[in-house]
């Protein structure tokens, strides 16, 4: 029993601390819809608004595996280097945004809809920050 003591204290403190940190973090996060991804590795440098990708909208229509296996998006915001040429070529977003499964790449402003200055990453509050924040 005495051997377990520090472990128990540790886990209590740990739990309390986790909760405290989560509560502290909550108000810091933005108001975006949960799971929205900002894609701005290249867009703004090339004079386009950042791209906002909404997970909520797409997951109503497709299972995760469609994009994260069949289309091949790695599960890490910013990790996929996306060029407009690839999209027009029918890769990545263009696997669906090809005027067949969904409207095509000519609708620039539907994807490039973000506020100037946004950084690439996952958004949406409630989270602990998402990958890479800590």
């Amino acid at each position, binding site marked *: *029993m005495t051997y377990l003591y520090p*472990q*128990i204290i*540790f*886990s209590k*403190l*740990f*739990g309390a*601390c*986790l909760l*405290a*940190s*989560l509560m*502290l*973090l*909550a108000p*810091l996060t*933005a*108001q975006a*819809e*949960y*799971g*929205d991804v*900002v894609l701005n590795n290249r867009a703004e440098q090339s004079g386009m*608004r950042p791209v*906002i990708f909404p997970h*909520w*909208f797409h*997951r*109503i*229509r497709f*299972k*995760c*595996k*469609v994009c*994260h*296996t*069949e*289309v091949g998006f790695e*599960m890490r915001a910013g990790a996929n280097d996306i060029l407009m040429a690839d999209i027009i070529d029918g890769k990545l977003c263009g696997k669906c945004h090809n005027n067949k499964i969904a409207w095509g790449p000519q*609708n*620039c*402003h*539907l*994807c*490039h*809809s*973000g*506020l100037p200055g946004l950084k690439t990453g996952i*958004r*949406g*509050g*409630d*989270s*602990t*920050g*998402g*990958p890479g*924040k*800590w």
Partner: protein
Amino acid sequence: MVQNLMKGLLALCIGLGIAQGAFPAEPASTEKPAWLPLAQDDLHDPEGPGIKFLQEPAESLSTLPSDVVGNRVNWVRALDKGFIDPRINLYSNKKQKVLDLDVIRRKTGEMNMVRFPHRQHTEWLDCTNCHEWLFKSKAGATKFSMFDVLKGDFCGRCHGAVAFPLTQCNRCHSVPRRVSATPAADAGRK
């Protein structure tokens, strides 16, 4: 060792406290309203030409089974009860391969143990979305802690990003330890 960890944790708590002081939350209210209009979400440009063509989250999300966190949608129920019928493939007819197998992870200190249910996950995901690069196919073989999860790795890849957030401790920590179990029996299990 334990002491160092505790010191680290305390430092982290204090650090967060300070960070919080430096960026005070705007209004005092902690309750985030569900489904803000796109023009107010700090992400979409209200001046942009595209915004009026995009769907407002409230329009579709409010019709799905509700939840208190994340998208305010219980996605497991939405799928199970047929509220949504997302496509499984783009170009093949392969069926979704669902596996009904729970894995219990026991190293949770005083917290309830963690139940990982394969069924609900394999309704959405392929085996290869998790195996073998993220999790080994052997219960207990993948070593990670809650810190790794909070950093956005392992379960935290998805939970805290797209799937329900990490604030919901008890949805994962859902298996109470039997009161009768001797500590030694649990401590010995990996």
